[in-house]
């Protein structure tokens, strides 16, 4: 079965266009915009109709099932969106049960137009939507009660899953649900005044805690279906490699092996092993003797790429920003010029739950179970592979053990592999598993980057001129998202955090190169901000030191006057951390950083010392402006955890490297994320009180931590750290 790769992509592209047209002018059906979704100047999308009965189901027992239109992969959405709905619904929270929505039109992200989770959009995009859903359902329940009692709805009120009418009448939601469902859905509803919130804004504990603590929570990998088989695929050792020859004798000797066959992959071809159980499938896969055809394929090599990127960064690229006077730099005396070159490696996401997808092909329809961040695309890919239409694929969203962007892949390669294997069987659920080794070696990394920054410092110590070149693979070139995200040859995700900086630099020039490399790349929690914030915040700190100014004061001075959110968090950070910052033990230093992304501003202060030649982070204080804090408990978790995730960039083994086209790491022993000792001992999070639109909290924690820690280290050692990972301190 030779690769049908080109066909698949072509068909998907035309299908996507067709669906946009068919949706009758629904704006930007496939447009995915990182970082900002709510930009000025873009027309607001037409109102969509979301039938409440697709989102809320009240059972006779009183239990209220709320359907969540996003994957739950740690961010807490299965609690926070139901909270929003339940508040407007005036529901008894103790009766609420959250369910993850399967793939369907009605569950698409209201802004992005596809069903997905990403861009820190869970709350920010669905807050209004879920409020309305709750309010509409409440209105319908009241209408039902008013009907029954022959009174005006205006004489009724609702509280805690009960409607109260005049003259002491009351009825539970459970009693009214059936009648309410037959009531017309109101077009407009009154939403609560923030002062009326009972859940929104409160620290509401997660609904899924107990199940995740007693082993009963099922993730995608835990799925068990009658007749299910397990598949493990032999992937080429170099991306895009093709199978030339397979000797599967040894593999077939293992009892329980059902079938072994070649399959096309998103890139190249591989060999699938299907067996009764995972252990057999993996052992058999490992025993395959495969000769690979690597002809004509680029063998990516990290040391070569580093040299190449560094050289590219020394020339201007495609221009993203050209503001002010380009002679300003040459007018700055040499003594006040800095040139800084930075290097960033490939990074793997490695969510704790290995990648998996289960597909069962029934001939004229199919069923899929995927812990998916990209249900619309994944459903389409499965359908296409099986020769079906998307609506013929029942696509279940399973709970995911983390994602961080890894389960949102434009080519849907994991569910696609599962479908291609399932196609060989009938009515047999095939659970495809990527063992950890496959995950670490399998690509779709945060790209490598090089930065070169030249700064001309004014006499006042502030940057007067700034020339910034970024080198890194484009995340979307060659995909359906390219049109929207690449402008004038610059992929927005490569320069976000630099090009849109809130620092006031008058003569500002930003350009980018997008080399093509044979390594698949993907967004890694906070995307471009992972590297751009590191460069910006370490450089700003360096400038502050040169100007002999306090790092917070310097930032206050340099930020644009209208950088409201950033100014607010800097102030709050200062207030909450001044006491310990001014009282550091010997050998400890404080490091500061601040960054805004996905419309959320974060300021960070860390206390660092050096222990056993590594940074030891004793504490982190964070100040956050995310608009209205829907669930402050969840936000605190996201920030405490997000900075722990971000610290991957500083780990000694926090890099994926390639030699002769092959990834050198294979598991957590070679690519090592932070363990408990690498993460801060204590993290206090302070949220700016606000009633503004809620903005995202999933990604904003990540960019601030690495520069803050490194800024502290520089204070301790006097060294600059511009090449990640931090191999030595």
């Amino acid at each position, binding site marked *: 079965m030779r690769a049908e790769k080109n066909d698949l992509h072509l068909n998907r592209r035309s299908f996507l266009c067709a669906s946009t047209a068919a949706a009758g002018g629904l704006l930007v059906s496939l447009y995915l915009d990182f970082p900002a979704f709510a930009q000025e100047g873009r027309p607001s999308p037409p109102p969509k109709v979301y039938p409440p009965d697709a989102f809320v189901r009240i059972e006779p027992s009183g239990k209220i099932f709320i359907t969540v239109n996003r994957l739950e992969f740690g961010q807490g959405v299965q609690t926070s969106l139901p909270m929003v709905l339940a508040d407007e619904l005036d529901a008894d929270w103790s009766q609420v049960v959250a369910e993850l929505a399967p793939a369907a039109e009605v569950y698409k992200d209201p802004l992005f137009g596809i069903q997905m989770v990403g861009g820190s959009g869970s709350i920010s995009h669905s807050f209004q939507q879920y409020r309305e859903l709750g309010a509409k359902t409440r209105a319908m329940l009241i209408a039902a009660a008013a009907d029954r009692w022959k009174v005006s709805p205006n004489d009724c009120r609702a509280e805690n899953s009960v409607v109260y009418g005049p003259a002491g009448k009351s009825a539970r939601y459970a009693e009214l649900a059936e009648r309410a469902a037959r009531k017309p859905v109101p077009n407009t509803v009154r939403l609560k005044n923030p002062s009326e919130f009972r859940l929104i804004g409160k620290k509401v504990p997660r609904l899924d805690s107990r199940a995740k603590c007693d082993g009963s929570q099922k993730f995608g990998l835990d799925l068990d279906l009658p007749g299910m088989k397990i598949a493990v695929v032999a992937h080429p050792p170099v991306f895009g490699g093709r199978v030339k020859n397979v000797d599967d004798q040894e593999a077939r000797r293992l009892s329980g092996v059902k079938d072994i066959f070649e399959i096309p992959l998103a890139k190249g071809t591989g060999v699938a092993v299907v067996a009764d159980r995972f252990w057999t499938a993996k052992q058999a896969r*490992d025993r395959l003797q495969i000769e690979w055809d690597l002809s004509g394929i680029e063998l990516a090599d990290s040391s070569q790429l580093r040299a190449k990127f560094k050289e590219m960064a020394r020339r201007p690229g495609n221009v993203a920003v050209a503001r002010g006077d380009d002679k300003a730099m040459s007018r700055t005396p040499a003594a006040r010029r800095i040139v800084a070159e930075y290097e960033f490696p490939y990074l793997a996401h490695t969510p704790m739950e290995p990648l998996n997808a289960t597909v069962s092909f029934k001939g004229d329809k199919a069923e899929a179970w995927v812990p998916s961040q990209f249900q619309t695309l994944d459903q389409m890919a499965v359908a296409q592979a099986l020769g079906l239409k998307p609506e013929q694929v029942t696509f279940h969203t399973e709970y995911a053990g983390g994602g961080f962007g890894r389960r949102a892949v434009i080519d849907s390669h994991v569910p696609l592999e599962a479908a291609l294997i399932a196609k060989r069987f009938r009515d047999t659920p095939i659970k495809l598993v990527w063992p950890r080794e496959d995950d670490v070696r399998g690509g779709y990394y945060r790209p490598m980057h090089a930065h070169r920054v030249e700064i001309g410092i004014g006499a006042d110590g502030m940057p007067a001129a700034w020339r910034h070149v970024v080198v890194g693979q484009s995340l979307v070139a060659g995909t359906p998202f390219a049109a929207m995200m690449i402008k004038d040859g610059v992929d927005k995700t490569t320069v976000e955090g630099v090009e849109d900086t809130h620092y006031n630099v008058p003569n500002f020039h930003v350009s980018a190169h997008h080399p093509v490399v044979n390594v698949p790349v993907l967004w890694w929690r906070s995307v471009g901000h992972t590297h751009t914030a590191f460069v910006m915040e370490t450089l700003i700190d360096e400038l502050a030191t040169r100007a002999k100014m306090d790092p917070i004061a310097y930032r206050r001075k340099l930020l644009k006057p209208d950088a409201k959110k950033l100014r607010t968090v800097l102030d709050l950070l200062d207030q909450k951390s001044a006491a310990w910052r001014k009282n550091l033990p010997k050998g400890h230093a404080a490091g500061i950083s601040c960054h805004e992304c996905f419309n959320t501003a974060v300021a960070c202060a860390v206390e660092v010392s050096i222990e056993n030649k590594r940074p030891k982070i004793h504490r982190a204080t964070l100040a956050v402006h995310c608009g209205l804090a829907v669930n402050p408990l969840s936000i605190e978790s996201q920030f405490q955890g997000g900075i722990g995730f971000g610290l991957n960039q500083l780990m000694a083994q926090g890099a994926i490297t390639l030699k002769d086209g092959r990834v050198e790491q294979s598991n*957590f*022993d070679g690519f*090592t994320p932070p*363990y408990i*000792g690498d993460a801060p001992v204590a993290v206090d999070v302070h949220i700016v009180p606000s009633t503004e639109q809620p903005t995202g909290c999933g990604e904003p924690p990540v960019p601030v931590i690495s520069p803050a820690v490194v800024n502290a280290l520089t204070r301790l050692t006097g060294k600059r750290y511009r090449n990640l990972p931090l191999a030595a301190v």
Partner: protein
Amino acid sequence: MLSNSRFFIRTLLIVLGFTATWIVLTADAAVEGRDSQKLNSAASRPDGLAAWEQVYLVLISPRCINCHTATNYPQQGDDRRRHFANVVRGGHEGKGVPALTCAGCHQEVNADSTGVPGAPNWHLAPLSMRWQDTNDRPLSSAAVCRAVTDRSRNHNMDGRALLKHNAEDKLVLWGRNPGRRPDGTMRTLPPLTHAEFANATRTWVEAGTPCPRGR
């Protein structure tokens, strides 16, 4: 003077008598176990030193030295990198800490299907038996020899006990059969066969466990 010299001679005779008795009593003492042979006290110092250099090569090979660290952690692999997952020594027993003990992964025999080595009582040698410095560099031949023969540090082992240890201890023997790595390949063996190692130890012990001079 005369009384002193008579006292001296009498003491000397007594000491010699004890020594002779000791020699007679120990000369034929059987060494239990596989390589039990009569210990011969005829090995020369040069022979002993040469034999020690052989023993030293084994001791600093990865299968042995990886657990004779000077730090808070074991090493693994032929590249002697720090053992992954932050496993640490624990108390002086060197068996790890609660929830992260050696026995939590290392069983009593090798687990070849998963690539985890095993032997009874898997643990780190105590710090007194370190053969590296805190920068993970093997100590010199002289330094290791001193460590190995210092009875205040080596669990009070004399030459005979050292021979028994090298010949028969389960963890030492594990080095001969170190099992498969997770990738299926066999772990590399120490540079001598077990017989060569035991014989070299014997020669060295017979020579009175001499140590090379120097640091």
